[in-house]
């Protein structure tokens, strides 16, 4: 079964954009607590640009949509999250290139994104970054189907809660060391919205 078509990929971006807009203040506040207070602004700006771009472009494949999104994120976000999300979407796009996006291709895409994140951010699991969420989603998909959105979002949420108790060792929050404990990682939160948006889009079909 084809999971991601051009239209669904576009819808995914729109759903992400909505969430980043709605949660801009929340993400910024999370980043104010342990970072520099721009994550919500960065995400809202980035996905606003992504949607502006994909809305006015026609694509041959979902891979092309994601590539377009990746390039836009890299060019419009900056900071840590721009290259990271840019890399994640670019790796997904590459994994999907020339293929129909079924379960296996999608799982591979997520795996590649996770590897890309790790290479770019040099983060390991448990360092209180967005990598934690992506890694856990990839782990979950080793056993389960992409369609189990309930399960995927539960995994995300649990991971986000886990980041709350961690002391960050990567990213800006790491400067706070022990004082970063007690706060959810903003990038993990925005990653949750990315997966929630995907769930929404893929659910539309059911």
């Amino acid at each position, binding site marked *: 079964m084809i999971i991601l078509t051009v239209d669904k990929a576009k819808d995914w971006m729109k759903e992400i954009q909505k969430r980043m807009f709605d949660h801009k203040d929340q993400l910024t506040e999370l980043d104010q*607590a342990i970072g520099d*207070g*721009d994550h919500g602004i960065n995400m809202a700006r980035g996905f606003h640009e992504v949607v502006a771009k994909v809305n006015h472009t026609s694509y041959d494949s979902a891979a092309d949509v994601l590539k377009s999104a990746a390039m836009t994120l890299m060019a419009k976000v*900056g*900071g840590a999250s721009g*290259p990271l999300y840019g890399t994640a979407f670019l790796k997904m796009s590459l994994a999907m290139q020339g293929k129909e996006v079924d379960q296996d291709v999608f799982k591979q895409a997520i795996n590649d994104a996770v590897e890309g994140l790790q290479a770019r951010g040099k983060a390991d699991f448990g360092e209180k970054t967005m990598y934690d969420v992506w890694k856990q989603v990839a782990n979950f998909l080793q056993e389960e189907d992409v369609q189990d959105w309930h399960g995927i979002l539960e995994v995300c949420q649990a991971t986000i809660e886990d980041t709350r108790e961690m002391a960050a*060792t*990567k990213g800006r929050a*790491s*400067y706070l060391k022990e004082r970063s404990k007690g706060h959810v990682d903003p990038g993990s939160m925005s990653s949750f919205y990315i997966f929630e948006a995907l769930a929404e889009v893929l659910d539309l079909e059911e």
Partner: protein
Amino acid sequence: MKKVINNANHVVDEMLDGLVTAYPSFLKRLPETTVISRSDALVQGKVGIVSGGGSGHEPAHAGFVGKGMLDAAVAGEVFTSPTPDQIIEAIKSVDSGNGVLLIIKNYTGDVMNFEMAQEMAEMEGIKIASVIVNDDVAVEDSTFTVGRRGIAGTVFVHKIAGAKADTGASLEEVKAVAEKTIANVRSMGVALSPCTVPAAGKPSFTLADNEMEIGIGIHGEPGIERLPLEEADNITTILVDKVLADINYEKAEVALMVNGLGSTPEMELHIVNRKVSEILQEKEITLYKTWVGEYMTSLDMEGFSITLLKLDSELKDLLVQDVKTIAFHV
């Protein structure tokens, strides 16, 4: 904190326009970019020096663009590293074939974006190198951390690398002296109040009336320790002691920067400087040259940082070599 702005989303763009309108003989803006370069760029036969980072640190970085310092500065959104596509434009605009040095402050975002641009430049056959400034002793430096942040000491790296490039040195030589500067420069800051990112609209943290935040960065991120507010001499002593503990300054000759973070009046910076020089004299550390003012700010934050650069004769010469920028003078 009230702001004199039109639209929080346009502050960087409007600032850059205002800047080049004010100083056309020094600066120009590359069309459709956030890159500010020397008005006389590109300068032939010289290594190009590019730096930049998030906005909100004015006069950094565009204020240091000019003969004897940076060839171009790339501005990101407020407190957000610029993107690779902007950085590569800066690189191309100052590459005369002698290569380009990137001076990067050590933040995850800056390092990632600049290194991506560096990779792109390499693919386009540009001779390119980079150095990463990490002068902030407030942050622990170990292989288990992301390492120290780059703060006000970066300005000395700009100056010295720029002066070296002006002598006609090679990219390798310029990089080497930048590395030497980085190895010898240490800073630490304190905040008395947070700052407010325009688009966030509220302060980055809160401090009680009798509190200060020691070891503050330059992005409104919390510092490493919250202490009761003390008198100027005591705050100064805390910072200087921490800086001096980090490398051996015995009988050293140093350059000093007392850097205001945005809202601290110059009067207070001079009061701090008075104490710094007193401490250095006690410790028989020789002051070669001092800068007191705003060089690497954090929007409207109240507070300051202290930077010491340990000098040898090469660094001394380069530090006072002629420079023609808006914000750094010798």
